[in-house]
């Protein structure tokens, strides 16, 4: 691990790992939901997807994550994935700490505790998810996502149904963790402000069937 040549080679290999999303068509029965949604995500880049409700944002994320495999096209993704669903999706019958260590068997209890501390749940390790508020459950889901040092992080509206102050706290926490772990990030949001804040690049889904809008928005400015 100490050999600088090896480390350099590993870095280069990592840098080559662009995430390629090439969804030609996605249908549910007779209705076409996605049509030619093609884009790349560079390592360490944060991409936001905007679009109205029901257009197919969650469907696209499920395809990128490999949860939904019934589509035409292909996705090149790294093995180290992490996902944050709209609902926290925790194991309600296991403690906060076990929710981290069961999902990441390589994570020691101490590392897991440190991770809980980072998201402000340092004193909640022994509690069950039911005993946490929604905001705390969301932070636990975030801790779970970052604890595995993912190469690709996928988030589906992680900041909705929180009061503005809590949403703001979650947003800056996410910003900090992304800066620290530096995964390629793909996230969906309704709120343009969230996209502007976190994303290097903003994609917009439009139309029926949904496709990517022709313009790219970079750092809030249309290009």
């Amino acid at each position: 691990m100490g050999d600088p040549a090896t480390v350099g080679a590993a870095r280069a290999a990592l840098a080559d790992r662009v995430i390629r999303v090439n969804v030609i068509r996605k249908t549910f029965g007779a209705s076409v939901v996605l049509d030619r949604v093609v884009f790349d995500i560079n390592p360490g880049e944060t991409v936001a997807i905007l679009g109205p409700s029901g257009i197919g944002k969650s469907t696209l994320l499920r395809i990128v994550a490999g949860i939904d495999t019934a589509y035409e096209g292909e996705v090149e993704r790294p093995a180290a994935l992490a996902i944050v669903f709209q609902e926290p999706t925790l194991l309600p019958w296991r403690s906060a700490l076990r929710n981290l260590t069961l999902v990441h068997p390589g994570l020691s209890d101490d590392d897991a505790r440190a991770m809980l501390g980072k998201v402000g749940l340092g004193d909640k390790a022994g509690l069950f998810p039911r005993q946490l508020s929604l905001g705390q459950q969301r932070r636990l889901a975030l801790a779970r996502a970052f604890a595995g040092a993912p190469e690709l992080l996928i988030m589906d509206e992680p900041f909705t149904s929180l009061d503005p102050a809590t949403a703001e706290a979650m947003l800056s926490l996410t910003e900090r963790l992304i800066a620290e772990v530096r995964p390629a990030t793909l996230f969906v949001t309704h709120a343009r402000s969230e996209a502007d804040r976190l994303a290097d690049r903003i994609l917009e889904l439009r139309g029926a069937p949904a496709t990517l809008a022709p313009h790219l928005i970079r750092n809030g400015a249309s290009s």
Partner: protein
Amino acid sequence: MTDKRTVTALSLFGLLLLWFAAAALTADPQILPSPAALVQPFLREAASGELPYHLSQTLIRVAWAFCLAMALGIALGLLMGRSERVDRWLDPWLVVFLNLPALVLIVLCYLWIGLNEVAAIVAVTLNKVPNVATVVREGARALDPQLDAMARVYRMGRLTRLVHVTLPQLAPFIAASARSGVAVIWKIVLVVEFLGRSSGVGFKIHMFFQLFDVAMVLVYALSFIAVMLAVEWAILQPWERRVRRWRTA
């Protein structure tokens, strides 16, 4: 004074009084001995070691059949609940076995496998597997697809997933089938012993039945009921409380 325990105690005491009264009215200990008349035979049988021996023989058979039936039933129910194809193919079998009288299965097992321990346990197990599978299948159909997706994205191992994601969701269904399972299995074990074993409570009841010894039939039956209640209180209920802890915490 509507404390649940008090009511239970009073109710059982009432049953005991009814028994005393019925025994007094019958006035024939050959047909219905009074509860007091069972104490002596019980102590004699316990002291001789006969009672503990046959109770333990039956308990071992119950334990074997219970564990096998639960393991097979959970596996089958999980498989059928998760795969529509498997369900379509195996559901008719389940219906057939659910409607097969216990006695028929027992006799067939003895005829085909022989009058031995394996046949006895297989017969009891086969009687219970379809019920467990049916109940667990309902649970497997209700498994949360989001948790499943989460487990897949994070590449949780098969065993971890089974133990920490799937089984906890099935726990209420497993508990329900375990409770009814224990209740049914020990009764079937008694029949199996009655028909073709030379040890156990069912065997002893068969023997005393042929001797028209009602008192001893009651001694063995009541002793085993007591054992099964003890199992329920000492093992099943604490286990259920443990797996439910996260709901009530």
